[in-house]
């Protein structure tokens, strides 16, 4: 007897715990208060358009109370919804107060019903969407595709007139030769590159860039300037090409270069 009673009590405790656990799982399974409301509304077994919002509010409040009695922590938004539904319930039950501004209880209820219907509708179409034939599952794309080669061809063109005008321009310019920069004292970047390229391979150590100026150009200031500029520009090209490192310890300090070792790349 006593044993049975004990067993019954124990069973009840287990049942209660299971119920509580089930409840926790259920709460976790809901995507927020609206989702819970939608589930509760199904128990009314009517078209969502004919749902009794008042009854639904009561169902929700009962649910929240039950959760409280089971000492289940409900997320804040569930409690906010409970408070709002309690308010809605009072608005629905009390006769409308003509002095009060704002929406009537019926308007609020209608909107809630609309929200539920809309959520349900979205779930229905989501299911219909996912039930459609899907690419890669029901229908398939071409397995052996061919790539379209995109070749970009630039053609240059000129007319005979362009050609003659160009020539005329040069020949006319001859008469004004003094205006033209003197080629003798111009060191081009191409020349500097051609000179630097074979040399930098031997620059295992940091070397002053100025030591790479072509012979005879470092004396005359003007030639030295153009050679320096060209050599510096050429060194930047080589840095870009990954052939050398370049550094300048501080402002106005000598610029130094060093070959990039083959195996450190």
């Amino acid at each position: 007897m006593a044993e049975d009673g004990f067993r019954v009590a124990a069973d009840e405790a287990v049942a209660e715990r299971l119920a509580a656990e089930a409840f926790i799982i259920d709460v976790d399974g809901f995507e927020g208060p609206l989702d819970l409301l939608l589930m509760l509304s199904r128990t009314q077994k009517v078209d969502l358009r004919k749902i009794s919002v008042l009854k639904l509010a009561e169902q929700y409040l009962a649910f929240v109370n039950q959760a409280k009695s089971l000492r289940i922590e409900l997320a804040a938004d569930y409690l906010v919804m409970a408070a709002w539904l309690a308010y809605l319930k009072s608005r629905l039950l009390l006769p409308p107060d003509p002095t009060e501004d704002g929406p009537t209880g019926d308007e609020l209820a209608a909107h809630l019903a609309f929200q539920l219907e809309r959520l349900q509708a979205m779930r229905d179409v989501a299911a219909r969407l996912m039930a459609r034939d899907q690419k890669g599952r029901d229908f398939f794309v071409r397995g052996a595709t061919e790539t379209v080669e995109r070749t970009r061809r630039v053609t240059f063109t000129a007319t005979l007139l362009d050609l003659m005008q160009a020539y005329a321009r040069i020949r006319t310019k001859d008469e004004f030769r003094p205006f033209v920069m003197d080629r003798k004292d111009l060191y081009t970047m191409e020349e500097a590159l051609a000179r630097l390229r074979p040399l930098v391979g031997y620059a295992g150590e940091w070397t002053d860039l100025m030591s790479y100026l072509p012979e005879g150009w470092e004396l005359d200031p003007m030639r030295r300037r153009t050679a320096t500029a060209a050599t510096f520009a050429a060194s930047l090209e080589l840095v870009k090409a990954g052939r050398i490192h370049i550094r300048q310890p501080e402002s106005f300090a000598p610029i130094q270069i060093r070959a990039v070792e083959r195996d450190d790349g």
Partner: protein
Amino acid sequence: MMAEHDGREPEQSLFEAPPEAEQERMVEAILFAAAEPVTVAELNARMPHGADAARALESLRRRYDGRGVQVVRIDTAWAIRTAPDLGFLMQKEVVETRKLSRAAIETLAIIAYHQPVTRAEIEEIRGVAVSRGTVDQLLEMEWIRFGRRRMTPGRPVTFVVTSEFLDHFGLESARDLPGLRDLRAAGLLENRPPPGTDDGEDGDQGQSEMFTPDPEDGNDGEPPA
């Protein structure tokens, strides 16, 4: 042997354009070679001068009617896809796709049916916050993309579905979403603000504006980017 010719050629532009049967072959070759849908504009660009890809497409589509592969339209582009009823033969080709969460599926549906739609509107419809991961996943799958910003305070971004989405679900355009007409008729695609809120802000944006029934105009359901 040449494909059959169609005797009565109404166009006068025979001068330089290839014959219609030939144009159809060209469209066929181009569509077969590509996995991605090809736009009519690109077809025309790749075909010889004077070709009319749209017309060739139409007759090609009819030709493949009922065959094992089909010519389908996706938005403004076209592709060849296997007939859905033969999917069972293709187990070898099936690629396991990441299973979408319920939240992601619902969010996707809301974007598809309410586009362009803001995150706040999605949350209003679902009644819960939309997690960043959900949106990121859909963006990454290229099923949704950003649409125009809404001209309301804060200028929130909107989301719209992509043509990749349409392709995946075998839809010609967003107008062909299942049940769209009924939802619209039931007023469930309206942006209906809660009573008592200041509803001045949403006067300009019918979310369902893109779905305005207008079957005549060939405009693709996508809002301009």
